[in-house]
């Protein structure tokens, strides 16, 4: 036993921790000057997104994976957390700690209200109710509440913000979010041979928060509370007939899940102090559903993998333009080159959604358990006969 985890969970946590700690190195597998450097993901902005959306997806999975309640409005909590975070950076201090704490709390309160109403229904009606609330929040943020949210322009820090805990700003520039003087954008770079590795303050702060969030999620999955949530998923009616009131459990679960989203929102604005209304739009809510399903619903590590894959596509594939394609295939004869480029082009750049859609379909059809199931299948090929591949509690989907 370690930190209250059994050995398998502890080793999973340890592996995730090592991967996260060394991400700047193995996400940059290609040397800087090589043509494949396009596929490197080890730069601060994307690494921060990986772990922050990982937190968002972990939180979503606590609700969807354990109880089977599909919330279609989780982006509202992410957005509420983001706005709360920016306001803290504007009013209180540029230190990100209060922003992160308050954004989690605000999202929690917001989730309590929405959850209290939405949880009166289950199944599709619950999904529709959460979707309706999220769209209302989006509409409010985008126009009605413009003085608070900045409307479509978004909410940003400004030079003349009060920031009552900080001294008077004499630099003539807006201070950058920092943690006790260390700026989120500060990086320490090491170049080895042709490789360049960037170790970024903001990334490691987000990574530490993500690991704590992951640890907490493991504890929830393994707790009596988690078992109760699984029971709700398998048969809520039967639980009710035994005289058990499931509502407090559901509400607690919904609020925890909302707070994870708020935490992710708070971290997002700590890395880049701007909150836009589109963060609350239904597409953003849908994205976290995709992440979770792509990675593996109800598994511990799945949502993090799904978040990573989607963000990788969004940031790397979307930037491949026709100019680059022509460069890659320049060795071919002209006609063939143009032909190949015209075939590939619809799937990269602006068309990255198309590729993602195809992958998503393939996963749903062939791997209903998501990337985690893929991992298990690959592992079982390498394993000797006799060991049972799917007996691993780390990756067992809730029924």
């Amino acid at each position, binding site marked *: 036993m370690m930190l209250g985890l059994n050995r398998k969970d502890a080793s999973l946590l340890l592996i995730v921790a090592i991967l996260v700690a060394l991400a700047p190195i193995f996400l940059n597998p290609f040397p800087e000057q090589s043509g494949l450097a396009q596929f*490197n993901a080890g730069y*601060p902005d994307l690494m921060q997104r990986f772990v922050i959306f990982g937190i968002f997806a972990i939180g979503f999975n606590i609700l969807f994976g354990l109880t089977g309640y599909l919330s279609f409005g989780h982006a509202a909590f992410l957005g509420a957390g983001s706005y709360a975070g920016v306001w803290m950076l504007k009013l209180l201090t540029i230190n990100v700690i209060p922003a992160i704490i308050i954004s989690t709390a605000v999202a929690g309160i917001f989730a309590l209200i929405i959850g209290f109403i939405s949880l009166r229904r289950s199944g599709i009606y619950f999904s529709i109710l959460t979707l309706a609330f999220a769209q209302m929040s989006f509409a409010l943020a985008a126009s009605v509440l413009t003085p608070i949210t900045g409307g*479509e*322009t978004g909410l940003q820090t400004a030079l*003349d913000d009060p920031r009552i805990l900080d001294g008077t700003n004499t630099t003539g520039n807006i201070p950058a979010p920092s943690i006790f003087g260390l700026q989120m954008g500060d990086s*320490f770079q*090491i170049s080895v041979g042709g490789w360049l590795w960037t170790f970024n303050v903001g990334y490691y702060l987000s990574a530490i928060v993500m690991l704590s969030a992951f640890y907490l999620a493991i504890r929830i999955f393994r707790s009596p509370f988690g078992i109760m949530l699984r029971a709700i998923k398998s048969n809520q009616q039967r639980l009710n007939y035994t005289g058990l009131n499931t509502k407090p459990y559901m509400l607690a679960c919904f609020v925890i899940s909302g707070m994870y989203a708020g935490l992710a929102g708070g971290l997002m604005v700590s890395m*880049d102090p701007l909150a836009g209304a589109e963060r609350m739009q239904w597409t953003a809510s849908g994205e976290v559903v995709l992440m979770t399903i792509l990675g593996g619903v109800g598994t511990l590590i799945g949502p993090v993998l799904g978040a990573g894959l989607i963000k990788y596509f969004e940031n790397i594939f979307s930037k491949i333009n026709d100019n680059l394609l022509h460069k890659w295939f320049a060795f071919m004869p002209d006609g063939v080159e143009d032909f190949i480029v015209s075939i590939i082009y619809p799937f990269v750049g*602006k068309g990255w959604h198309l590729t993602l859609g195809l992958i998503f379909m393939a996963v749903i059809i062939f791997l209903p358990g998501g990337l985690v199931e893929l991992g298990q299948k690959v592992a079982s090929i390498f394993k000797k006969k006799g060991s049972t591949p799917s007996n691993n509690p780390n990756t067992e989907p809730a029924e």
Partner: protein
Amino acid sequence: MTKTKLTRRSVMQTGAVAGAGLAVPTILTAGSHSGFANAPTGSSVTLGFNVPQSGPYADEGADELRAYKLAVEHLNGEGDGGMLQTFSSKALDGTGILGKKVEYVTGDTQTKPDAARASARSMIEKDGAIMITGGSSSGVAVAVQALCQEAGIIFMAGLTHSNDTTGKDKKANGFRHFFNSYMTGAALAPVLADRYGSDRKAYHLTADYNWGYTTEEAVRNSTEALGWETVAAVKTPLSQTDFSSYVAPVLNSGADVLVLNHYGGNMVNSLTSAVEFGLRAAQANGKNFEIVVPLYSRLMAKGAGKNVAGIFGTTGWHWSLENTAGSRYAGTNAFVKSFGEKYGFPPSQAAHTCYCQTLLYADAVQRGGSFNPCSVVEALEGFEFDGMGNGPTLYRAEDHQCIKDVLVVRGKENPANDFDLLELVDVTPAEAVTFDPAIFGGELGSCNPGA
């Protein structure tokens, strides 16, 4: 437990390899060797072109990207050189910038501040872009400009027309060549009062973000000063595509002019809606009902088709300018020629401003002798130039805004072809639209070289 394959032996082996790797490296913190962020080290320099490739401004974005690619060609000495032949500063010689070949990366802003910043950050952090340029939405421009200020990168705004970009949200590292809402109001109001009389009642439909607000304000202030009255001003979401519910109440509101503070796809849709509701044929208060579009572009005119005939608006530049208004606007034909030869049709005003911004940046680096943002800022502040299609122009030091002539245009009744959609009504000289940079508040701050 047999499950874990992570044995002590393999851990030690990995550790030894990692240790050996870590023993050699040269350690450098971002840009410490050069004094500014993303200092180009090799034989090339990377510019970041961040334009909307989806959303209501996607047409403008596509044209901007064409212009950027053309500018890069000309900077690298390919093609016919375009405006480099007419530009008053002769520092650029077709060998790239400071002898470094110009390369570029592109990104999609999606016309959303959030997405635009993510895209710009990846250009700065991953691709090492030394300058970010682009736009088509002021919301995006303001957001990306703030990001560049923080990161110590120069931002050359593309098409952004809100007062805020070089007004209350201006930044030392940001520059705008395009004109603004205030200048539109100042140029347009006298023409409107002249054609439509001074006792009109206006109804505004306004895109719900910073550009819409400042344009509405500017047009209101300048028309009200000439005797007009504003009946109502209604905000419409940027992502709106069906404007019928916004247009329906206009005719019974007592107004006799509809001002569409919309741009791009928004304007195409709202104008089409207004025409379908019969506003153009209608009578109100005993006068012909009129529609005004403060910021006009040829791409919008093309999208709206014959609905634009006779409608007034302003524009920053038009491809036929040198032919219709004379050699004061030299550079126009040179640019139109090389753009037309490459793409087969004339450029839009968005393409023009983006092309100019790229050349102006390159020229400022060349004159200042360094890619350092502070050197660029110094070279651009108070810079007077000519031969870029707008006549003599000043890059004002106080707010980093270009001061130049504004064109008042009108949709043609009988366009000769698909591109000849706007006719020039009046050129308002720069002096008539100049304003005090202090009126919008905001502070430039100091230039930030990053690192």
